[in-house]
């Protein structure tokens, strides 16, 4: 329910009023009842657990989905939004959670798809060019990218393109669904600059994010969703991060704490490992029961280290000794045979078998365990293994027979993680394990990781999330431009970690207690 008591006095009608919105997908009630009111020129944060219905709500506003119930009013007059074109005509611009772009077309073309400036039937490139270049500048992208095929850009750059694209036309409402999830901090700064300027110009912005701390820097108001309902809506200044998090999950959450563990034999040893175009001269030792974090901005090369360890890519030079074997894993299945497992960064495209059941998704990585005879699969074993993991990881699902495609991001992430810990791995590589995952699920995933380490698994966590790496890693290797820039303990200040990753001069002396075995 909209909490009118907290709403600051507003002059004129609100820019947007959505009331009594409900939406169901077959048997799933994605939204039970949602109200949201957004005033002109404000940044309105929309937060909630994974699966709370945030994306669904904004899809209804952008015309990508139609509500079953409820009304929408813009600037005081009721509107009906039956298609994306209706929303665009009403001045609603949307940056979706998954960038909706065209890999085969150039960046320039991507900007104008669907709203080309034409002269007769032909596209008028001369008229389009200045606007396009201006927008590239606005989001801080190189102008030379205009003629690149979009598919050749990194995901982060693609995300920036999709943000820039939304600015092409004067919007009265701009929706950003987790725009920052895959952006680096510097890129986020640029984004915030853009958002603030737009708000100053009177544009209303709906901003969805799981990074609660960043919301306090950008948002004016916040609406919190839980279980398909809006539970509160008020100026963000009235709340703390902790209060928001508690309202999202509907109860108190426990504070995480870092425990010290005994470390065993080295499980992974890298020596001067290099992969052309990705990283160079990486040296590290990872012991059983140890959690090492590779922290770096997107494109720092940290992600590729994980791929080499898992056999997705071959290093160009250097030594790699994993689980007592000096050979570089030739393929993921070779890596698997040694007890190396990896959870990829992009769960939708790299992790999910969308319309297959959860049980299938969990066991597909360990088919060897499913039958008494080699090559054989027993449905009973499959059920036993998957039910066990669903319980252990507290995956929210009525049964293992549900398809993973209808699950929210956080639950899907748990399933993908479950796949890799069916058998306790000797070495587990986690890439962005909690990207886009809500606080509750994040908590659990961190607990699971700690648990595995406790039981002797060596864990390599690759992440761009600063808080996360501080919470779960025993040691942090900071990556910059393909090299290990610093090695820091988790107790190092955020400032020094960020500085190391961003390449700024670091005045603070490097404290390295507890990590004596090697110097960076």
């Amino acid at each position: 329910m909209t909490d009118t008591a907290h709403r600051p006095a507003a002059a004129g009608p609100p820019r947007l009023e959505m009331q009594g919105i409900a939406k169901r997908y077959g048997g799933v009630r994605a939204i039970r009842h949602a109200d949201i009111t957004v005033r002109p020129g404000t940044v309105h944060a929309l937060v909630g657990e994974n699966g709370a219905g945030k994306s669904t709500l904004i899809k209804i506003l952008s015309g990508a989905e139609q509500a079953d119930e409820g009304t929408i009013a813009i600037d005081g007059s009721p509107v009906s939004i039956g298609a994306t074109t209706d929303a665009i005509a009403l001045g609603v611009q949307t940056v979706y959670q998954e960038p909706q772009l065209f890999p085969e077309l150039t960046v320039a073309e991507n900007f104008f798809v669907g709203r080309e400036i034409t002269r007769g039937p032909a596209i008028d490139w001369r008229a389009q060019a200045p606007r396009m270049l201006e927008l590239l500048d606005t989001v801080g992208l190189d102008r030379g990218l205009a003629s690149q095929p979009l598919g050749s850009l990194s995901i982060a750059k693609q995300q920036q393109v999709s943000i820039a694209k939304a600015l092409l036309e004067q919007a009265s409402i701009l929706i950003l669904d987790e725009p920052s999830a895959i952006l680096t901090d510097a890129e986020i700064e640029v984004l915030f600059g853009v958002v603030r300027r737009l708000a100053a110009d009177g544009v209303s912005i709906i901003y969805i994010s799981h990074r609660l701390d960043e919301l306090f820097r950008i948002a004016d108001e916040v609406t919190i969703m839980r279980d398909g309902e809006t539970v509160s809506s008020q100026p963000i200044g009235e709340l703390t991060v902790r209060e928001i998090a508690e309202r999202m999950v509907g109860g108190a959450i426990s504070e995480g704490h870092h425990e010290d563990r005994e470390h065993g034999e080295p499980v992974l040893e890298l020596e001067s490992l290099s992969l052309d175009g990705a990283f160079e001269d990486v040296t590290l030792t990872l012991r059983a029961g140890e959690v090492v974090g590779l922290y770096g901005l997107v494109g720092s090369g940290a992600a590729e280290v994980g791929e080499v360890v898992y056999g997705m890519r071959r290093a160009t030079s250097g030594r790699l000794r994993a689980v007592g074997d000096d050979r570089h894993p030739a393929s993921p299945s070779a890596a698997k045979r040694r007890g190396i497992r990896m959870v990829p960064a992009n769960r939708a495209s790299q992790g999910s078998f969308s319309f297959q059941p959860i049980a299938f998704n969990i066991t597909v990585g360990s088919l060897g365990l499913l039958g008494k005879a080699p090559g054989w699969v027993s449905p009973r074993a499959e059920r036993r293994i998957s039910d066990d993991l669903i319980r252990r990881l507290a995956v929210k699902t009525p049964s293992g027979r549900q398809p993973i495609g209808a699950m929210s991001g956080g639950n899907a992430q748990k399933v993908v993680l479950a796949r890799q810990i069916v058998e306790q791995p000797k070495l587990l590589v986690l890439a962005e394990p909690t990207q886009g995952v809500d606080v509750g699920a994040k908590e659990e995933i961190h607990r699971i990781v700690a648990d595995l380490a406790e039981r002797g698994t060596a864990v390599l966590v690759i992440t761009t999330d600063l808080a996360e790496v501080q919470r779960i890693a025993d040691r942090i290797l900071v990556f910059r431009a393909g090299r290990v820039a610093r090695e820091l303990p988790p107790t190092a200040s955020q400032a020094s970690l960020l500085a190391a990753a961003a390449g700024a001069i670091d005045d603070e002396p490097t404290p390295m207690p507890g990590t004596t075995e090697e110097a960076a």
Partner: protein
Amino acid sequence: MTAVDTATQGGRHGRDPEPRPSALDRARVWVASGGLKERATLLLGLIVVLLVVMSILDGVGLTSGRFNSDYLASTLIAYVPLALLALAELFVITSGRGGIDLSVGSMVSLTGVVFAMLYQQAMLPLAAAIVLAVLFGALLGAVNGFLTAYLGYPALITTLATFYAYRSIALVVSEQRPISGPEISSFYSAAKAVELPVIGASLPLVPLGVFTFLLPVAIVAWFVLNRTTYGRKLYAIGTNDTAAQWAGIDTRRTRMMAYVTAGAISGLVGVYTVAQFASARPDAGTSGSGMALPAITIAVLGGVAITGGIGRLSGILLAALLIVWLNASILLVVPGNEGAQAQLLALGVVLLGASLLSNASIRRRSTGLTKPVGVPGTAAGTSR
């Protein structure tokens, strides 16, 4: 995990405000929750409807011949190759990434010719000739598989090319003459109708090919698809190739094996057609509109998602049965040239009707999935 989540979980799935859904509602939910995705149910229903309607027509004397079990059994001779080739398509289509095999007809022609040359001209023992022919089919399939899985050719292109190429080779090596002879003529007994032992006297004569060719392959295929790690891998690569790679599956080998399997099955059909036609025709699988298009049609009708990852044996067997019996029924009801023509009409209507109907139900369940690839069989699902 905290108590909070258990509560939400209960809230989400435990209590639903609607107390007693009406029958219509229940039917709607059943359809929406994939009742019709169970293509087998739909097909079985259609077969029953067909049999009932035909029996009534037969009863009132509107058919030109008796519509009885003998007739239905005798038409099964055409059922065997159709079902087998649709099964071959199931393997390649399910392997995903645009998997399809246009060359099955050409492989049937070519392996049939090779089989006849081995059996009739080289005088090899029957068993050896059959094994070699099937292996040869697997080899032809391996060419498709290698090009598609290892070199990255789109399957439609690979198999269009080999469709042309194998057809040419079959005609050239046979000097475009059917191969026949005493051994092959007597081999017809492998396909012809027989009386079943023990209980056979009171049952219609069933073509032997159903037992010697179709049944064993179907049983093996069922186990492979449902009870082996290979089956899991096949469905995995068809659903999401990248994710399968990350899960540690050798996607290329798995995909290649799908084409090899299709080739081997085509080889077996090649042998079967030699028996059925009592000669090895170099155009056995390519004359007329060829065997590939009907096979793909049956596979699709049987619920195989053209985008990969979905496909069941039961759908194939029932779809082929429906079409064979529908065609046979039409011949008894519509006399003259119109009869054969009406078969085209019926196939078109059944195919379009079944796909549109069950797609509507799939769509209802999954509209709004964030990834368009998630919707099987739909135009949106193929956009990448």
